[in-house]
Structure formats: C-alpha cells, structure tokens
C-alpha cells in the first residue's frame, strides 16, 4: 500500500496531466493533421478553420 504522500503526489500528477490534455488535445490533433496531410494544405486554406478556433479559445479564456 503506498503512503499518503505518494497518493497525494499521484493525485497531483493526474490533475496536471488532465489540465494539459484539456488545453493541448485539440491543438495537437490540428497540428498532427496539418503536418501529415497529403498534400499538405497551405496556410491560406487553414484560414477558414483555424481562426474560428482561435477566436473560440479567446472567448473560452475570457469566460473562465
């Protein structure tokens, strides 16, 4: 049985991991998608999808 100290540390690590996943998951998919797409889309083509996402993130930051 792990000690109380270890348990607390594990809980903290999980919480940090959860927060990282929360903010990084969608940017990660978009990054992977754009870099591995065939043919690689030009930045102009991203304009229609990414800015709305950035605007949305801004909105999200303001509300929280």
């Amino acid at each position, binding site marked *: 049985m792990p000690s109380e100290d270890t348990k607390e540390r594990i809980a903290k690590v999980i919480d940090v991991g959860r927060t990282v996943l929360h903010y990084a998951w969608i940017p990660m998919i978009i990054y992977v*998608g754009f870099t591995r797409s065939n043919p690689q*889309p030009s930045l102009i083509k991203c304009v229609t999808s990414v800015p709305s996402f950035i605007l949305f993130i801004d909105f999200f930051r303001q509300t*929280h």
Partner: protein
Amino acid sequence: MTSPNPYLSPPPSSSSTSSNPFSSYLNRFSKWRAELGLPNPGSVENLQKEVKTTHLTNYAFDGGRADLTKSMSMSPLFQVTHSFALGAQNMPSSYNFGAIYATENVFLQGGVDHDGNVSARVNQGWASGHVSKAQAQLSQTPGHNLLQLEQDYNGQDFNINLKAVNPWPTDLTGIFVGSYLQSLTKNFACGTELVVQRPTPSMPEIVATYIAKYTGSDKSWIATAQVQPAGIVQATYWQKLSEKVDFAADLQLVVTPMRRDAIATLGAKYDLRLSTFRAQLDSTGKVSALLEQRFTPTFAFLMSGEIDHFKNSAKVGVGVMIESSALSPEEMEMQMQQMQMQQSLNPPQ
C-alpha cells in the same frame, strides 16, 4: 494508454513444442478449432449495431442543427467540423468544434464545445485484431470528467473486451467491464459481460449479463438476447427485407420487485438513392420519423419529427449538413487514383 495484454506475445511455434505433450495437445486443439471455420461473432458493444442503425433513437433531434465539415485530406483522413444546435426544447443552444485525424491504424478525435468541455478519443489498431481505445471527457466542473480505457481483441471465433471507466490508481476504484463472446456454431454465439463497480475500495458490486446472438445463414437476419439475473431482459430482432429496406424490433423488460416495465420498439429504414428515411413506433405512444435527403454529394438536408400520443407533445427538428473540401478537383482525382492503386495492390480480406 495501452493496458498490458497477454495476447500480444507471439504464439508458440509448432516446431518447438513437440517435446511438451501439453502444448502439442494445445496445438491440436487450436488446429481443430481453426478447421471448424467458425465466424467472428463481433463485439458485445456492437451486438445491437444493426438495430441501432435502423432505429432512429440515436439520430432523432429537435430544433435547428447545422454541421459544417471541411475535409483537408482524404488519406490520411483529416477533417474539421463546426456544429451548431439551437432551439431544442430541453437542450440549450450549443456550438461544437471537432477535429478528426485517421490513418489505417490510428484514429484521433477531439471536440470542444462553447463551455470549454473537451472530448477526446484515441483508437490504435495493432496487428492481428488487437485494438486499444481510450476516451476522455474533460471539463472545468469537478465530477464531470471521464476516462475510459479499453482493450479489444478479435480472435478467429471470439471477441474479448476489457474496459476500465474512471480507474483511480491508488485505491483501484472505478468501473471495470470484461466481456467475452464466442461463436459456438456458424450461426450461434453466446457470451457474458461482467461489470464490477467499485465506488469505494470496500464494496465491490458485480453484475453479470448473459448474451446470445443468432445470425441467419445468409446474414439477412440477426436475433439477440441479453439477460441480467436481477430481472432485466432485452431482446432484439433485425432483418434485411430487401436491398433497400431494413426492419428492426426491440423489446426491453424490467421485472424487479421495485419496478415492472416493458417497452417495445418497431422501426424500419429505407435507403433510397439520395436519401435515407427512418420510421419508428414504440409502446410508449411515440411515433417518429427522420428524413435525410442528399441534394448534392456535399449538401444534405435533415428533417426529424416525433409525436408522443400519450403525453400529447411533439418535437420537430430541421438540420443541414454541408461538406467542403480544401482540395482542388485535380488533387481529389489524384488521391482517388492513389487509393484505388493501393486497394488493387493489397486487396481487403
């Protein structure tokens, strides 16, 4: 993200096992089993897949809806979706952004709604029928987070699935689900699903479900039954009446000392050339229908309606689905040719 899997180790080769009588028996047993030629029964999760796609319970909506999908690439698949929903009776208006990236073995999906709740899903396929899956719901509100880890193994004539929902490593609380489905004859498969709930380390609670599935010889009909000894029975029947018409029936019975209840649902699906029409009738007095009309390959119009005769209420939904591609027509054609080339080089089994 993968749970340790005992099936990943390679099977012992036949030449090295002649010295051990036990493994030679095992070898003969697996050979005999392969000679039976039993089909894979499919997973327990997909037991009622045909019924669920025929019924419109999972497809019905009310209010207005719009889905705008933009495909950046076809292989690997990469697309982003903006979904809007408004005016539903018991759901607030919402906006959802989704992204999907998929190759042959990997599937990544992410979604975020206007409240900042993120949903994530990863599927990783390994060789020989193993699939690891993980999904998560991440929210600012405590208590709304969900993590599910899953390992699926499709064998020659069986399927094993292990799942852990919200596992907590220090005290091993959470919900753990294990299911096993085995083909016994070419048509009949049966299995069981065990759900172990451990909300606190001291009181685990185990619920078993017994499952049977009978598939017609020409796969034109499927009957399934699920029984929980506590008094819950679910039986379904699905039949392909013709190329374009599917029919499905579903009966749910709850007979416990606390509650006696039964719901029967009948539904039909028509796949026409440019549209899909689903109609459904159930024993709670609800009649519903859904029309999905595709005007062009990139534009679809949806109409959903439901009348509850016993409660005297009605719901209507209207939606559009627009798909656009970031590729020029020439690029699309080139990718199609590439995909056809790949398919002719390694034909699907």
